[in-house]
């Protein structure tokens, strides 16, 4: 049985057991129909031209974990940002771990999707927001059909949430291969501010495929800073579907740091539904081996006087392949839009490749749009300059790569994350250099 068939038959079992109300029931049923019609995306589709899921889909994934697994905090502490106080929503093989989590209902809701989907007190929010930003593409639909667990975050008006929120998904490898479909809903009301860190971590070499959907709503003047740390092991693949709907004067930023994983596809979509909105998309990708990373971004400028800033840096070694596909749509009404997009890449091996493609669809006449893609090598004259000052080749390379990623790192507002990322990069490059950025 191939994965699609398996999913379709599992859906019946899943729905049977579920205690969802009619609303959710309908949404899920519509979604599975969409998935059934569309199937998994193939390279024939323009948006998937450079990324093939074929190999990844061949594994015999279990769709529901058979048992509940536990983990000792001391074994996995290193995957947390643990030097500052944070809220934590932690999942093990798709199941919530209350033991590792720290949720809250005091003034804000930082809790579970499963309770939000079933408890009456969240009903209004679910009806207003759940599946209201996600598209009807096949993978988001598949996720919607099975949507059951994930993070639910609701920040009421005028709250600055001091503690960042960590959403972490572990897979234990107790299943020989596992498919995970976390579903997150984040609603940030007027004038509120929240910082979120998301990470997926597989603890063995058993294959993992994660098809995640995150919907984020930022209301008037709200601020959301979202950090995705993608440093999973080489048998784990991730399709991240994130949809952000912004209201006027809100600021949403997403930093995506991609170092690990076998195949990583980020579908990051921003919809600007108000004036004077700012959308910020930043990424650092450093991969080697046979890793594949595909950043697929969309910024939809719908209203006037808004901005978007995209800055993606990529460093590709060995047989790695990268894709950057950045789409900007500026609607006719969206006058005075400022949209910036930059994608700069360094290939450090002859065998690595990158496909980079900006797509601009501009229907307004009074806009400022700039975009630029570069692909280059490490600067030889800079290498000699550094080495002549006593910095060895490997360290000099690392320093150049840091420097290259620096303007993305410098916009990270949580110092502990910056430190962590710096450390991951140093590890990745096999160096230990004693400077901070």
């Amino acid at each position, binding site marked *: 049985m191939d994965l699609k068939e398996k999913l379709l038959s599992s859906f019946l079992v899943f729905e049977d057991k579920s205690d969802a109300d009619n609303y959710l029931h309908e949404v899920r049923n519509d979604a599975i129909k969409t998935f059934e019609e569309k199937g998994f995306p193939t390279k024939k589709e323009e948006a998937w031209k450079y990324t093939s899921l074929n190999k990844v889909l061949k594994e015999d994934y279990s769709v529901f974990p058979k048992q509940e697994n536990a983990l000792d905090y001391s074994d996995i502490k290193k995957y947390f940002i643990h030097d500052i106080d944070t809220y934590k929503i932690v999942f093990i093989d798709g199941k919530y771990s209350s033991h590792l989590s720290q949720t809250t209902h005091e003034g804000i809701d930082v809790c579970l999707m499963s309770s939000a989907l079933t408890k009456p007190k969240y009903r209004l929010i679910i009806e207003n927001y759940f599946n209201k930003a996600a598209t009807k593409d096949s993978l988001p639909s598949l996720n919607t059909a099975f949507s059951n667990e994930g993070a639910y975050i609701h920040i009421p008006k005028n709250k600055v949430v001091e503690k960042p929120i960590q959403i972490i998904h572990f897979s234990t490898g107790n299943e020989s291969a596992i498919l995970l479909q976390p579903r997150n809903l984040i609603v940030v009301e007027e004038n509120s501010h929240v910082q979120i860190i998301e990470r997926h971590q597989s603890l063995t070499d058993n294959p993992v495929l994660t098809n995640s959907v995150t919907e984020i709503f930022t209301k008037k003047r709200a601020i959301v800073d979202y950090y995705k740390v993608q440093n999973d092991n080489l048998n784990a693949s991730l399709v991240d579907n994130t949809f952000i709907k912004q209201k006027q004067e809100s600021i949403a930023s997403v930093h995506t740091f991609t170092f690990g994983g076998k195949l990583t596809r980020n579908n990051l979509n921003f919809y600007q539904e108000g004036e004077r909105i700012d959308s910020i998309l930043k990424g650092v990708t450093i991969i080697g081996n046979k890793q594949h990373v595909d950043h697929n971004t969309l910024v939809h400028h719908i209203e006037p006087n808004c901005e978007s800033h995209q800055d993606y840096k990529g460093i590709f070694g060995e047989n790695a392949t990268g894709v950057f596909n950045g789409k900007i749509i500026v609607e006719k009404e969206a006058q005075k839009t400022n949209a910036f997009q930059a994608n700069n890449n360094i290939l450090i091996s002859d065998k690595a490749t990158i496909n980079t493609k900006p797509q601009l669809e501009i229907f307004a006449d009074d806009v400022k749009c700039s975009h630029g893609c570069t692909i280059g090598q490490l*600067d*030889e*004259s*800079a290498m*000699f*300059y*550094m*080495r*002549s*000052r*006593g*910095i*060895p*080749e490997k*360290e*000099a390379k690392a*320093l*150049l790569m*840091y*420097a*290259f*990623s*620096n*303007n993305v790192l410098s916009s990270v507002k949580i110092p502990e994350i910056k430190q962590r990322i710096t450390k991951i990069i140093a590890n990745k490059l096999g160096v230990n*250099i*004693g*400077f*901070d*950025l």
Partner: protein
Amino acid sequence: MLKIDNLHASVEDKSILRGINLEVKAGEVHAIMGPNGSGKSTLASVISGKEEYEVTKGNISFNGENIDELAAEERAHKGVFLSFQYPVEIPGVSVTNFIKTAINETRKAKGLEDMPAKDMLKLIRDKADLLEIDRKFLSRSLNEGFSGGEKKRNEIFQMAMLDPKLAILDETDSGLDIDALRIVANGVNKLKNEDNAVVVITHYQRLLDYIVPDFVHVLYNGRIVKSGGKELAHELEEKGYDWIKEEVDA
């Protein structure tokens, strides 16, 4: 300290250095002059270990050890320093982080621990003061958007930090106004002692009024065609290079 024997070097089969002989002893200051394109910067790069250039004949020894096969960083660890004619811009790395890394990597190569942060800070302050460099300047990205003069001053600041045995200053005077020239020359002179040596590459006599050479060499067409004392520099200033070219080409 530095002994260069019949050095030939080429790039992409184009021969640039064609038999250089030069000996620099501890405590000495040498000046290398010569028309544009004669190979001065190439010589400096080859001594520092730039891999682009291939040494086809001859050798370079440093304190009795043949360094031809050493990587640029290994030569630096032994005390070779090159102040670049065209310092490279490295956006995203501050002057401070760069020099800290250079110092600690050099210490690491010698089996030493990182320099304690407090000592580092003090060293940076002292040397910045010596070269009259503003503190704010140190947090800027290395050479990015620096004026010609700022770049050169920053090179000498790094030299002061690294305290090399042999410093090669490639056209450090170009781009400097007279005040900056005095500050830089004064810095170099303060660092100069009996155990180190300086090779000054320049077009003009001007810098040599401040950093007074013991020997002056004229490089032309990849060879040292004339050597003398500091008076040779004056002669070149007055008469230009044509008489030397004629002598050689005859």
